[in-house]
Every structure is written in structure tokens, then in C-alpha cells.
């Protein structure tokens, strides 16, 4: 999508602290609400942002104050696109075990990526695994009210 189609955009470089990421999350979610996105879509984007940003800050940058996370977001009338990039070594998303396998069901971690994929329309990592693109297409109103 070309930049001109976005109604709202932001581009932030934040320190590796969860509270810094939440300010950006709140700004994105406030814009979705302002643009009349439904409650379920906003919940899904909130969850995906939380999981992706914690991954970047905790598992990517290891809370290193010398490292930063870049967050770029564009919102159109029917699409939210967020790109999150950390300065860590990256990882192989395909190597993350399926948390719903019976042997992993009681493991206390490993669910973030599955939740991102479930609630978003598209989740794509770069080859290194230190950048993720999250996209959410607006759910039609009749499905939102199901």
C-alpha cells in the first residue's frame, strides 16, 4: 500500500522498555478506535502488538538499554499495518514448538507467535527474524457482532 492511502501513520524508535512500547501501542489503538474499528479487531491488534513488542524488547534486545526497537505503523480505513524491528540476533519462527501439542500444553511460555497469527490477517518475519510485519484487515461489521 502506498503511503498516501494511510489515514494515520507513525514511526517511533523506542528504548528497550515495555512501558515505552505501551505509549506507542496506546496511540495506535486510540487511532483505530477513532477510525471506528470494531472492539474485536482492536483487541486482536492490542494482543499482537503486546506479544510482538515484548518479543522484541525481551527476547530480541534482552532489555539492553543500548538497543532500540523501531515501530512503524500505518492505518487506513480497512487495514492496520505495523512493522516492528529489534536489534537482536533474530530467531527462526518455524523452530518455535507448537504450544498446543499435548507435550507443550503445560509449558508456561511459547504462545505469543500463535496468538499473533490467530488474531492478525498476516504475520511475516524477515529472514533474520528480528523484524515482523503485522497486518489486520478490518472485520466486516456483521462478523464483528457475531
Amino acid at each position, binding site marked *: 500500500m502506498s503511503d498516501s492511502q494511510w489515514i494515520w501513520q507513525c514511526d517511533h524508535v523506542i528504548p528497550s522498555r*515495555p*512501558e515505552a512500547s*505501551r505509549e506507542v501501542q496506546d496511540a495506535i489503538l486510540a487511532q483505530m478506535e477513532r477510525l471506528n474499528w470494531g*472492539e*474485536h479487531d482492536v*483487541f*486482536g491488534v*492490542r*494482543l499482537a502488538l*503486546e*506479544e510482538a513488542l*515484548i518479543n522484541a524488547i*525481551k527476547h530480541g534486545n534482552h532489555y539492553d538499554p543500548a538497543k532500540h526497537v523501531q515501530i512503524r505503523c500505518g492505518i487506513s480505513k480497512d487495514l492496520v499495518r505495523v512493522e516492528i524491528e529489534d536489534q537482536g540476533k533474530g530467531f527462526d519462527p518455524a523452530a518455535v514448538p507448537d*504450544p*498446543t501439542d499435548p507435550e507443550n*500444553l*503445560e*509449558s*508456561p*511460555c511459547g*504462545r*505469543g507467535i*500463535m*496468538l499473533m497469527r*490467530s488474531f492478525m490477517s498476516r504475520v511475516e518475519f524477515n529472514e533474520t527474524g528480528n523484524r515482523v510485519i503485522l497486518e489486520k484487515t478490518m472485520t466486516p461489521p456483521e462478523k464483528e457482532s457475531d
Partner: protein
Amino acid sequence: MSAYRRLDVKEVGDVTVVNFRDQKIIEDLRIQELGQELFQLVEAEKRKKLVLNFATVDFLSSAALGKLITLDKKVKANNGVMKLCSIRPEIYEVFAITKLNRLFDIRRDEGDALAAF
């Protein structure tokens, strides 16, 4: 004064009912604190029948799910029983996607949860 910062704890007969003070269970330190308080109920106070009432909770992340899973293990190790209730639909979806609705006994509301013991 309550001994808990993240929880409201009450007794209904021999069942301990826990409500959450945070609407959004996301912040790392708060999740750690929440976990410690929940574990204390089981490990130090030896409570065997627990209901976790999510009526006040409108958002939680996978880090919070991790604490619930660890709590469930501690409850079972203590020969206890835990039930969850009053989970809003979007959060229930999180439990269903991760298949944790199979691990946890989830009831519609507090009355149903209490009646299930």
C-alpha cells in the same frame, strides 16, 4: 488491610474466590507480583479450592497465561482444584486458540464455578 496488592481474595464456604485488581494483566513486574500472590495462596496458605474470577479483566497477554499454567501445576501438586470463571469472549478466544480451555476448568460465572465443587 489486605495482604494482596494485585488480588481481592474472599472465602465462600471452603472455597477461595480470587478477583483481579488489574483490568489489563500485561506489565511484566505486575505479572510477577500477581504470580507470587497466587502461588502464596496455594503454597503458603495451603488453599485447596480456588476460583479465579476474571470479571474485572478485559485484557491479558501470554505472559499472564504462563503464570496461570504454573499456578495450575502448584494447585494439582497440592491436591487442590482450581476453576476459572467470568471470562469475556475475546479472552476466552485466547484460551481456546492456545487450547488452554482443555487444561483449565472454565465456568460461565462465579455461581457456576462454586456449584461445580
